[in-house]
């Protein structure tokens, strides 16, 4: 019988190794799996490469993971935020690496990585600094850059509803990168506000099919990054 539920966050995160590449869902605070990220800090894995659109805010969630010194490199499109100095300070000190990727190219690289596509061509970035080192090829008179698919050892994601098969529904724009990251990681771990039995979710409405999900952990009242930042909280 398929039951992907993990008893608690430590169980959900079991087996993440040092040096892992970790995709983390979220666009700013929307969809950021704060409890799983804090669990990863407790778990202790280090030398991580993080793939996420941003680098967190305040001293909670992704910013806290970076602040704890666990991240050696981030692959993202927008590593600045109005209220975080964690990533900028480490970056200026040369203590963390950055691979800057246009947001649509980041999404498409993840989609490709999850779909068995090693590389593709896109017009995004042609003639810019971000073209450096990339193969340029012309199709029908227009120039395109070759970009590589991205995959990861682990994805940490947040959903509104999951069933025991790992089928997922999301909450509004918290969906963002989660459905594509789920496809691109060997071990996809999801925190969900509600976890229900198989058959409880309408198959027509499923956004992420359970085949892409390995573990589900119930987090009934997830914290919002912005609320924690506004309260001046810091983790751990």
């Amino acid at each position, binding site marked *: 019988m398929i039951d992907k539920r993990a008893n608690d966050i430590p169980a959900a995160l079991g087996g993440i190794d040092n040096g892992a590449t970790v995709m983390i869902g979220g666009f700013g605070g929307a*969809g950021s799996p704060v409890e799983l990220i804090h669990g990863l800090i407790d778990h202790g894995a280090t030398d991580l490469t993080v793939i996420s659109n941003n680098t967190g805010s305040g001293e909670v969630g992704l910013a806290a993971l970076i602040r704890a010194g666990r991240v050696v490199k981030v692959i993202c499109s927008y590593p*600045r935020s109005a209220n975080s100095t964690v990533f900028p300070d480490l970056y200026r000190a040369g203590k963390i690496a950055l691979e*800057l990727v*246009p947001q*649509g190219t980041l999404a498409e690289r993840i989609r490709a990585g999850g779909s068995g596509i090693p590389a593709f061509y896109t017009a995004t*970035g042609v003639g*810019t600094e971000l073209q450096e080192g990339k193969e340029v090829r012309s199709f029908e008179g227009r120039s395109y850059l070759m970009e590589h698919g991205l995959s990861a050892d682990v994805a940490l994601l947040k959903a509104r509803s999951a069933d025991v098969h790992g089928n997922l529904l999301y909450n*509004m*724009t918290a969906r963002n*990168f989660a459905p594509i990251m789920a496809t691109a990681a060997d071990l996809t771990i999801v925190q969900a506000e509600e976890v229900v039995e198989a058959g409880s979710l309408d198959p027509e409405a499923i956004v992420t099919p359970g085949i892409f999900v390995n573990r589900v952990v119930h987090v009934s009242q997830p914290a919002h990054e912005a609320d924690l930042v506004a309260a001046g909280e810091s983790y751990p």
Partner: protein
Amino acid sequence: MKEEPKLIGLDRDQIARRLAQDIEDGSYVNLGIGMPELVAQHLPEHTEIVLHSENGLLGMGPSPAPGQGNPELVNAGKRQVTVLPGASIFHHADSFAMIRGGHLDLCVLGALEVAANGDLANWSTSEADAIPAVGGAMDLVSGVRSVFVMTSHCTRNGAPKLVEECSYPLTGQNVVTRIYTDLAVIEVGTQGFELLELTPGVQIEEVRQRTAAEIIDARAGETK
């Protein structure tokens, strides 16, 4: 010395209102973060224009009433928004398929510089200690059919933003369709900057003085 008369230009809301008049009914439009967001407040009445937010939303509505917001319903600037009837939510790869696949009709972006050949620089000032951040700007200019730039004609220090060649790192080459500033509406044509319209009270010589490239007078009824 004779003091120069103060130039009468549009304020940000007036530029937004002027630009909004040129958005066709039924368009799917992405508004960039910052000044372009103002366009949402000036869309012509009796039209239905669907706003796209690259974090996965079509049919974006205005900010929520105080206390009514949802931290998981935000726009590309990470500010809380609402959804209008007919809205849809989708993941990032679908959202950028709309952008990169040429499905959006128009995007409106801010600018550091626009060159006479349509090159746009709007993502990096190249300062030594700046943290590079690109977001979706390069995707928007490469994929959206029309790219309107909304900007002040000059920087705060009075330096022209419309130039012969961009000095800041490019967002895209030959991508800008039209520019709306406090002083004028300017098309990027095959020959360069083509003046379509002056803000009332502004003379073409004043625009030329504040532009670091040739301005072709393309107003209806004017000789070039």
